[in-house]
């Protein structure tokens, strides 16, 4: 069972790593948010993979569903914020936010 667990945790860590690298390197706000989504995918794979390996898949499933539902409201709020920022600065560049004053 450890091998299965290792497989899932390896790929979950790969997803989280890819998302973190994207967060560090990209400048487009939507791209940054896509990177956050990728990290979220890694976390749900981690939860369910651990639940699968430890024979408690039902609890893991409940947690993943909770996460997905919360993710939807997070996405809606964040995309509304991005649209508002675009209306304000006429750009999706994250560096434009540093120039905002008062």
């Amino acid at each position, binding site marked *: 069972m*450890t091998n*299965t*667990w*290792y*497989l899932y*945790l*390896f*790929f979950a*860590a*790969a*997803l989280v*790593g*890819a*998302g973190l*690298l*994207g967060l560090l*390197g*990209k*400048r*487009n*706000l*939507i*791209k940054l948010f*896509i990177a956050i*989504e*990728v990290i979220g*995918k890694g976390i*749900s*794979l981690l939860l*369910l*993979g651990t639940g699968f390996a*430890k*024979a*408690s*898949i*039902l*609890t*893991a*499933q*409940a*947690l*993943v*569903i*909770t996460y*997905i*539902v919360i*993710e*939807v*409201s*997070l996405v*809606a*709020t964040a*995309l*509304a*914020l*991005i*649209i*508002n920022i675009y209306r304000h600065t006429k750009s*999706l*560049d994250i560096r434009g936010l540093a120039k905002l004053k008062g």
Partner: protein
Amino acid sequence: MILQTALLIGLVIFSVLAILLKDLLKSAISLALASLLLGIIFFRMNAPYAGVFEISVVAGLITVLFVLTIALTGKGEDVRESRLVNWVFPLVFAAFLVIDALVMKGLLGQVPALASGAESGSFGEVLWKARTFDLVGQIAVILAGVFAVLALFRKRDKHD
């Protein structure tokens, strides 16, 4: 096991594509494909409810929200990404994968096993009885999200 590994590799490839592709629409679509693969993986792990939620909500609804936002904001062509990222990202990611493969096995041995008995009952019983507090939290978060979106899109007063 081989099919599961192939699905996981596809998931990572589509996620990396979603981050690296220049066209925002294409990256939203590859994020949806990654969600689809993750949903299939969930189905194969005996977690059908999580799979259904992942495919219908994340691959469906969130993709629609992303496409809508991209349509409303333009394709972000004015944002100049640094060219260095396209070279550095694959190199650092490959190095990360190597370290991940080497270190993860050692880390797994150090994680203490949770003391938990065998699960009984159906998924519904576990969700309603064991995780009632999470459900109340979910409702609160959804309400907070609705109010946040309403507040962000409210019409401005004349005095603003």
